[in-house]
């Protein structure tokens, strides 16, 4: 009985998310485009997440290089550090880690903002003035995340590989030219493409979950707090689980 109830609730939530996601995409494609609102969100979502995305990927690149060299000593692995770092970062680690860290940051922000608007009746006020909350509030956030998360991932790729370079030079005694050559020759267009492709999906999932939780928040400050926590948890799980399937799909298509 309890399981049935949980299943129904899960399906309800999934349905509501799909509905909001679909609506937002449909309105995203339809004019008028409120470019000013989009740019503001891009600044808030993208530019202000640069620091945290950068730190995450630089250190991941460094750890990856160290860990690989130290865990397989004597096999000459350090001469392939560039390959290991660039392949795993670009295909997998940068998109996922950037989505997790940046997603937590921006997702929580979106839910808190929309949730506060909901509980203070600002969303109702918007509707009462014959405006569409999805078009006014969700679409700019979706547009900005769809553009900025892939860009942050690209920057993360670069910084992560640079992190590996630092370790390669200062810890493992490689030359910069050797490392770069190795790192870049290992990479294919499809590696970069699949990483960026994933981040586009992550951006869609994070924004949909965050906006849905915000728009349905109730119960004052406490409710907004709960909705925000829920966003971080659900968005992270969605990123990790969907990553598995996306990895599978991207390997299949190239």
């Amino acid at each position, binding site marked *: 009985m309890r399981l049935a109830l949980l299943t129904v609730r899960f399906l309800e939530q999934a349905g509501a998310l799909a509905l909001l996601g679909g609506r937002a995409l449909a309105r995203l494609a339809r004019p008028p485009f409120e470019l000013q609102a989009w740019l503001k969100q891009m600044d808030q979502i993208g530019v202000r997440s640069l620091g945290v995305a950068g730190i995450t990927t630089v250190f991941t690149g460094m750890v990856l290089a160290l860990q690989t060299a130290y865990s397989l000593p004597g096999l000459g692995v350090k001469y392939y550090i560039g390959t290991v770092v660039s392949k795993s970062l670009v295909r997998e680690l940068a998109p996922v880690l950037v989505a997790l860290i940046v997603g937590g940051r921006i997702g929580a922000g979106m839910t808190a903002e929309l949730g506060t608007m909901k509980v203070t009746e600002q969303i*109702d006020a918007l509707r009462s*003035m014959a405006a569409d909350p999805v078009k006014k509030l969700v679409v700019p956030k979706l547009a900005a995340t769809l553009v900025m998360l892939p860009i942050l991932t690209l920057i993360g790729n670069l910084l992560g590989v640079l992190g590996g370079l630092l370790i390669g030079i200062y810890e493992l005694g490689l030359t910069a030219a050797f490392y770069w050559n190795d790192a870049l020759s290992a990479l294919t267009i499809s590696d970069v493409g699949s990483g960026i492709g994933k981040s586009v999906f992550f951006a869609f999932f994070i924004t949909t979950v965050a906006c849905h939780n915000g728009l349905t928040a109730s119960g004052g400050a406490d409710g907004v707090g709960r909705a925000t926590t829920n966003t971080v948890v659900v968005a992270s799980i969605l990123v990790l689980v969907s990553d598995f399937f996306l990895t599978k799909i991207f390997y299949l298509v190239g």
Partner: protein
Amino acid sequence: MSDAPIFDVSGLVRRYGSKVVLAGIDFKLGRRECLTIVGRSGVGKSVTLRLLIGLEQPTSGSILFDGQEIVGLSETSLQPIRRRVAMLFQGGALFDSMNVFDNLAFPFREHRMAGEKELPARIEELLAKVGLPGIERKTPADLSGGMRKRVALARALALEPEVLLFDEPTTGLDPMTSASIGKLILDTRTETGCATLVVTHDITLARRISDRMAFLHEGRFTFLGTFAEADRSDDPLLGDFLAGREESLHDA
């Protein structure tokens, strides 16, 4: 303009799960009338307003706006109606990410009713109407509760509505500010000729502004008429409410 009521509500029921908030209310709102719905806190007064512009859907019943059934309409089909009916929310519901100017500009921009060049003049005029000239650059956080409600009224007037819905316009305000809000509602009515529906538990305000009053109790209107009739009514609960007495033993 016809004499038919602008709102004609019948058999309106709203349930949340097993909780019945409105058990079937009927009323008509005349085109220039001011009707006040009074009742104790939490009896579903605000819900009634929300139903009238489709922010929520009733469990059953009918709401005719200018002869058109609005129950069951989609968000898109409700939009033309919402442009003609403005609602003032309890806390003002100003957009706190925008300053006063942008809050007031919102309906103009959204419905392309004025170009950016005309906006300053239009907004100045609206702010003057509610007695708050020159506060365009302030943010909602800088304003007192009474000022926020005035700005919200200015924003509601921007669309030149035919009906104004007020949700608890004086709650949380001191008696003098409440009185000035009452005067503002009266002045707005005189000036614009809007029909007005006010939900409140402020009897002083209700007496001052309304043509008729409805008393909502346990999901129904137990009284609907003028204050003169209400004062003569022998309903003990209404008597207690009007006199501001605590509930006596009538319920038992």
